[in-house]
């Protein structure tokens, strides 16, 4: 059995934790808005409850591969994928609307901000980024 490395598991938990915290918006605020301000309004739902799994897995991949890009860009690429999946999902449910195409621009930007400002610093603080930093330090020392 392949063992998961500690920092990869930690990366998963950070991604899942941040996305899970964001879920307070759809679970609490949207629910309150629909109940108190827009009663009877129907809205197109996407499987937002899967976001923690998606974010956790994406951050785990980040920790495993350590791609040479900004973590904000890594998050934005997840946003592109998510926006396409959400569009397809809405279309398959006959709930698609033209403005949903703008998700392809909106989600990457929002994901960029969240990954750059929240996930990245947490990764750094909790040691997910440790390996690459240590490797860089070693190479500097060798020079």
């Amino acid at each position, binding site marked *: 059995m392949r063992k998961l490395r500690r920092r990869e598991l930690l990366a998963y938990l950070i991604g899942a934790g941040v996305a899970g915290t*964001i879920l307070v*918006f*759809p679970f609490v*605020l*949207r629910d309150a*808005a629909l109940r108190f301000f*827009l009663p009877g309004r129907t*809205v*197109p*739902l*996407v*499987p*937002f409850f899967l*976001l923690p799994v998606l974010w956790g897995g994406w951050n785990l991949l980040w920790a495993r591969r350590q791609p040479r890009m900004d973590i*904000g860009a890594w998050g934005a690429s997840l946003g592109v994928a*998510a*926006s396409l999946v*959400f569009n397809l999902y*809405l279309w398959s449910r006959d709930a698609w*609307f033209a*403005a*949903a195409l*703008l*998700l392809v*621009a*909106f*989600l990457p*930007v*929002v994901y*960029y*901000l969240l990954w*750059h*400002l929240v996930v*990245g*610093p*947490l990764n*750094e*603080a*909790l040691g997910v980024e440790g390996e690459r930093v240590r490797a860089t330090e070693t190479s500097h020392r060798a020079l």
Partner: protein
Amino acid sequence: MRTLGLIDRATPAPSEDLWPRLRARIADDDRVALRVPALGWREATALAVALGILVVVPDPFRFLVASGIF
């Protein structure tokens, strides 16, 4: 008693002194330094784009719900 003595003698001595490690752990009081990047033009542009899209779309509430973050 003889058995206990045998077990005691068979147990290897600790390979290193644990006190320095314990002291280091006590000194490190489990605080983490969270370094949030400074907000620059990239972040400002991203925020402006996100808000601009919300202004442009005909039904922002529906749009936000479809985005999965609201």
